[in-house]
């Protein structure tokens, strides 16, 4: 029963996108449709988490063809968890987009609906070529969203950022496609389940899958290929940045986890490459962040750094390491969206995100200060919030796996993360601490704070990170089940090839 419903996660948003495209110049009813569909997807994925939480794997062979011939859609607790968080965060980002004005464009709803159907497809599919197609389904509407603006309000900056983003992603997709071609040439199949343990059987297949993995790592902005993200993400509107931060790179991370677990079966021989690359990502990302001077640029570099943390989980490939990586992935998606939404609220209200411009201009913002502060502390990994458990587990996992150097790097990078978060905090939210009172300051202090409607989306997510911090056990249990499914992939393979 559950298996036959899996294609709906792709079909419903695609159908809704087609309907919403008929809106003409109106944006109201497509927006309602968008929020309803995203709510339904979130609820559906949460239900999927509930039925898979025991470790069950559901697979649907599309078109009723036998396993291995058909395109398989597979859901286990890992994909269900990522899908839930991705849909939920898209919902919150769309809410912010509608409040801040970005979403009041007739093309916004159809583009987001196609985007989420591509994300769901990429998370559910167990076929490498189909993964490529769904990644493109996810990317093409993103190109539109990057430059989406009402008539006369588009910026050159978003066009320049878009050029970089489109060019880079086309290049990486082509590399991934070349990898898929090599996999087909060496193994004779692109079905993930049939490729199970293929890396151990043939070195040629291992090299071909490695091409795919390196393409996905570039898509996830792993150092040394991270510059595109730091320059493209801040160039678009704040709501779209927040939405992308939860989707694109995270789908690539999910695919890396899945493919390395199934094809390489966690082969210890190659883990050192991951440890080295992802440790470098942690360090270089955070150093880039501390040198930036715009809020969203800082947050984009942080994203690079945190991607290093998440992927370190797969480079450890122990039960604890994988569980920590999955926990970190889900926590990070939520926190990063919260931070981008808070920064977006400031940018929408004050018209800029350049720190030196905002200095002493931001008035009293008690709610926003708390919301941003909570998310920033969670990102740095302080105790009451979910970031603490994510980092604690990851560092414990790294020490257990004997990767002490990576554990030390993860700890030191946290300190620098906190430092650059304080840089934003000092410039934006605490102007009177560093500044002297002058006449302009009093003028600023008397202006009304950012409206609660703008702050609310970020606040909801900040509350979620606090809830996940206080009740970390629930998510940790789910992450443990997901990690067990990655270590022992027989259930996954059996579900696809009955």
């Amino acid at each position, binding site marked *: 029963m559950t298996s036959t419903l899996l294609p709906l996660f792709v079909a419903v948003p695609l159908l809704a996108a087609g309907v919403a495209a008929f809106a003409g110049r109106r944006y109201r009813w497509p927006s309602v449709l968008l929020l309803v569909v995203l709510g339904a997807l979130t609820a559906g994925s949460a239900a999927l988490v509930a039925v898979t939480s025991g470790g069950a794997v559901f697979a649907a062979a599309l078109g009723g063809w036998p396993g291995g011939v058909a395109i398989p859609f597979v859901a286990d607790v890992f994909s269900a968890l990522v899908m839930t968080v991705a849909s939920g965060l898209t919902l919150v980002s769309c809410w912010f987009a509608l409040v801040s004005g970005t979403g009041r464009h007739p093309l916004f709803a159809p583009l987001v609906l196609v985007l989420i159907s591509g994300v769901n497809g990429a998370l559910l599919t167990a076929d490498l070529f189909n993964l490529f197609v769904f990644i*493109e389904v996810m990317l093409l509407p993103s190109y539109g969203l990057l430059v989406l603006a009402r008539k006369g309000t588009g910026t050159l900056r978003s066009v320049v950022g878009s*050029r970089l983003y489109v060019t880079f992603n086309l*290049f990486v997709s082509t590399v991934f496609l*070349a990898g898929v*071609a090599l996999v*087909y*040439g060496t193994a004779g199949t692109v079905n993930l389940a049939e490729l199970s343990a293929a890396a151990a059987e043939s070195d040629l297949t291992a090299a071909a899958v490695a091409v795919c993995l390196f393409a996905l790592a570039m898509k996830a902005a792993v150092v040394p290929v991270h510059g595109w993200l730091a320059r493209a993400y801040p160039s678009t509107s704040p709501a779209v940045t927040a939405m992308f931060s939860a989707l694109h790179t995270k789908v690539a991370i999910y695919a890396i986890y899945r493919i390395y677990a199934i094809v390489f079966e966690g082969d210890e021989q190659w883990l050192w490459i991951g440890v080295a690359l992802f440790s470098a990502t942690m360090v270089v990302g955070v150093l880039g962040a501390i040198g930036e001077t715009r809020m969203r640029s800082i947050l984009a570099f942080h994203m690079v750094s945190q991607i290093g943390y998440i992927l370190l989980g797969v480079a450890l490939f122990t039960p604890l390491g994988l569980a920590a990586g999955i926990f970190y992935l889900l926590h990070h998606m939520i926190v990063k969206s919260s931070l981008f939404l808070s920064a977006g609220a400031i940018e929408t209200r004050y018209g800029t995100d*350049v720190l030196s411009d905002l200095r002493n*201009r931001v008035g009293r913002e008690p709610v926003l200060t708390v919301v941003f502060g909570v998310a920033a502390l969670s990102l740095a990994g302080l105790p009451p919030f979910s970031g603490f458990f994510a980092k604690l587990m990851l560092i414990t996992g790294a020490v257990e796996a004997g990767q002490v150097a990576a554990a030390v790097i993860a700890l030191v990078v946290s300190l620098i993360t906190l430092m650059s978060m304080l840089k934003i905090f000092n410039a934006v939210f605490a102007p009177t601490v560093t500044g*002297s009172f002058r006449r302009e300051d009093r003028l600023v202090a008397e202006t009304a704070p950012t409206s609660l409607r703008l702050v609310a989306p970020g606040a909801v997510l900040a509350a979620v990170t606090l809830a996940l911090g206080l009740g970390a056990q629930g998510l940790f249990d789910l992450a443990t089940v997901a990690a067990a499914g990655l270590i022992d992939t027989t259930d996954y393979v059996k579900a696809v090839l009955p």
Partner: protein
Amino acid sequence: MILALVIGALVTGAVYLLLQKDRLRVIIGFVLLSHAVNLLFFAAGGIDRRGEPLGSDPDPAVTADPLPQAFVLTAIVIAFAITIYLLVLAVTGSPDEDADAEDAPADPQGAPADAEDAPADDPRTPGRKETGR
């Protein structure tokens, strides 16, 4: 072997063009690159069997593998769509702006709002006064 040489030549040309300054050349580079990958798919399906997989009862010993052909067909339309979008992006924006332009200044008035209490952790702090503020 000929297929491998052609793919190699196409990739070489693509990499050369991708590193050019002109936006149109970059796009042509991408066209060459997707051609190369499409040929790679054909090579992956085996190059000995040349018969077309049509007709009521194709002989598997001489008929070409149809799966890579479907892959290529899909990849062609995807690359086509993105190429069109890249072409539109190439003619959007200001005409005198090069592909390798530096970051545009975010805001012409982006100078520090308050030079007196510039943050102590900003390495450019001592130089601020020389800018005439």
